[in-house]
């Protein structure tokens, strides 16, 4: 059994999809997702971090996965794995909202995510 397995905690998040968080972000392989590591600062990744913090402050449950630390989060999602097999690196990052793929190949903006939840209200 892989020790790095994603810990799914149903009950935490009654509004979630099948016990999974409402918003899942599958990162491409990188040294670290903060954008602060490495020879230059990656402003895109800083923007993503900021967006996630904002969504979380509004009560949304967001999780972010890296292949090196959470390989199983990728493996248990057939849609995500299909995209990765077909498009390889170009598929990533992938953003999934309640089990549905919202965007692939780049990170969504805050408004793109927010719109989906607003539409439901």
């Amino acid at each position, binding site marked *: 059994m*892989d*020790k*790095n397995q994603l*810990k799914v905690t149903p009950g935490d998040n009654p509004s979630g999809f099948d016990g999974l968080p409402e918003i899942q972000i599958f990162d*491409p*392989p*990188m*040294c*670290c*997702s*903060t*954008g*602060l*590591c*490495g*020879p*230059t*600062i*990656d*402003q*895109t990744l*800083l923007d993503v*971090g*900021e967006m*996630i*913090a904002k969504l979380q402050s509004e009560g949304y449950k*967001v*999780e*972010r*996965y*890296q*292949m*090196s*630390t*959470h*390989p*199983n989060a*990728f*493996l248990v999602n057939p849609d995500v*794995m299909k995209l*990765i*097999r077909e498009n*390889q*690196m170009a598929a990533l990052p992938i953003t999934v909202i309640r089990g549905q793929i919202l965007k692939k190949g*780049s990170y969504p903006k805050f408004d793109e995510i927010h719109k989906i939840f607003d539409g439901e209200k």
Partner: protein
Amino acid sequence: MLTQYIFFSGKGGVGKTSMACTYVVRLAEEGKKTLIVTTDPASNLADMFEQTIGHQITPIQGVSNLWAMEIDPDKATQEYIDRAMAPIRTAFPPQIVQVMEEQMSGPCTAEVAAFDRFTDFLEVPAENETSFDVVIFDTAPTGHTIRLLELPSEWSHAIDAASQGNGQTCLGPAAAIQDAKHKYERALGAMRDSKQTTFNFVMNPEEISIKETRRAISELSKLGIQNFELIINGIIPPEGMQNVLFAARSTMQNRYLDQIEAELPYPKKRMVLLADEIKGVQRLRQVAKIFFDGDDSESNYMTGKDISHESIIATPLREVRARIQPNGNRRTLFFAGKGGVGKTVASCITAVWLARQGFKTLLLTTDPAAHLGDVLDNPVGDEIAPVSGQPNLWAVKIDPKAAAETYKTRILEDARKRGRPEKAIAAMEEELNSPCTEEMAAFDKFIEYASQKEWQSVVFDTAPTGHTLRLLELPVDWSKQIDVKIFASVDSSAADDVAKERFEKVIEMMRDPEQSTFAFVMYPEATPILEAWRAASELGTVGIHPRMVVANMVIPPQLANTSYTLSRHAMQVKYLREINERFGLPVVQIPLLPNEVKGLAMLAKLGDQIYEGDII
């Protein structure tokens, strides 16, 4: 009390490996199953035992109950990557696997991996593994060791934070193996337990060594480590005192021995400076008799009658000067070599000499445990400042902790300018406290100074061998890493290009003999020569070749006039010849002095003597 784990610590060149080997030979003779492990990337265990060891537990020939292992940082890194990549290799397409592997070969992984491998020996062995009564760690030199030991507590903290948040904490390669956290905690627990672990500090009766030991003990105490013992090595024996030079050094030593007694309240053992080198199992057994039993009946000196002084080829100093002075362009000098061989002294002599020649000179160190200020007898801080009393000379110390603070401030200011919310900035600040920031920041400083145009000469007193190599190889690694970095925004891809160009310029500068001179500093003894040779070969793989050798602590032939000094002199002559044959480079000799090198006047005098001895 004998503990199961014994760490040997101390500044490189104080005889740490010799003493560790003396211990293990004695312990094995007493019937204890003993293992000696080194984490030093420039290890010389194999030289001490005169056999191949390598990256696995290897029995030592001629000593029953004794095994040794040299942790190879490259192999440890590969093993670590393989372990972390195993679940990924089978599940993901090859392109992705390849990108991940390239990213894992960044600079932090090697450090994580070496430490990871090393903590394995602090674990209770599995049933199918050999268990040892005593495990001795011949650790890497002080400054670096301490940083390595500081890491697990920081990682533990960071791994905790990562699992609670979005997995955003920047641990890079450490995060790949999350169960390592408990291993690191257990490792630190074992190190803190006086019943399990002893820290043996090997030191010389010299000012710098005392300072170094005190600093190291204080830093380890802060980490909750408490069981310390001292080995004072290199004490000149009565037979050495018939010689005027050694008698003067002995007077100096006595002063420092008193200071050690007064200031370092730990159990102490003393070891004499032997007239010949320590090498081979048979010799180690004799040394153990001298050290543990006070029995030196088996010591016998070479007579030294057959030494021909003429056989030491003296390099024309004109040739040496041509490699040191700037030739129209700026020249950068790097003094590399094992810790403790005199890199700082060589750098200071050279920088003072260049400044006195009228060249605008910057002297700087990248060694976290630097003692530049002690040798210059002038304070050296983390900002470039003129050295008072010496026109044309400026000095600076790259302190990784201070550099990290500056780096952090710069990045956070930039984030504020970009209008990021305070909450995000607070998160970034937290993030920048990660263990990698110091290394990154120190490197950033190194690049900054290496790119400055206002100097005619830049003299680098570099960190000990293994660390230096990593630092110098970083530009290569990082520019490679930028190549594989994916989907950077337009903004950061422009920044990447700037950074890459900057790194490439520095690499180019280091490779160009018109702009840079790498000098290897060593004593004329077997292990420092071998280590410098290995380090030089490793630098060769990144296209950087040494152009000069500095032989330090050479006994002046006219002062080798007793059997003890003749024996040491004979040993040095043999190795000076070896330096000539092996390196085929100009050799500068710094004589063994009655006192420590300290102060501008003494540095100026030495510079005249070693660089202009033919003119004066």
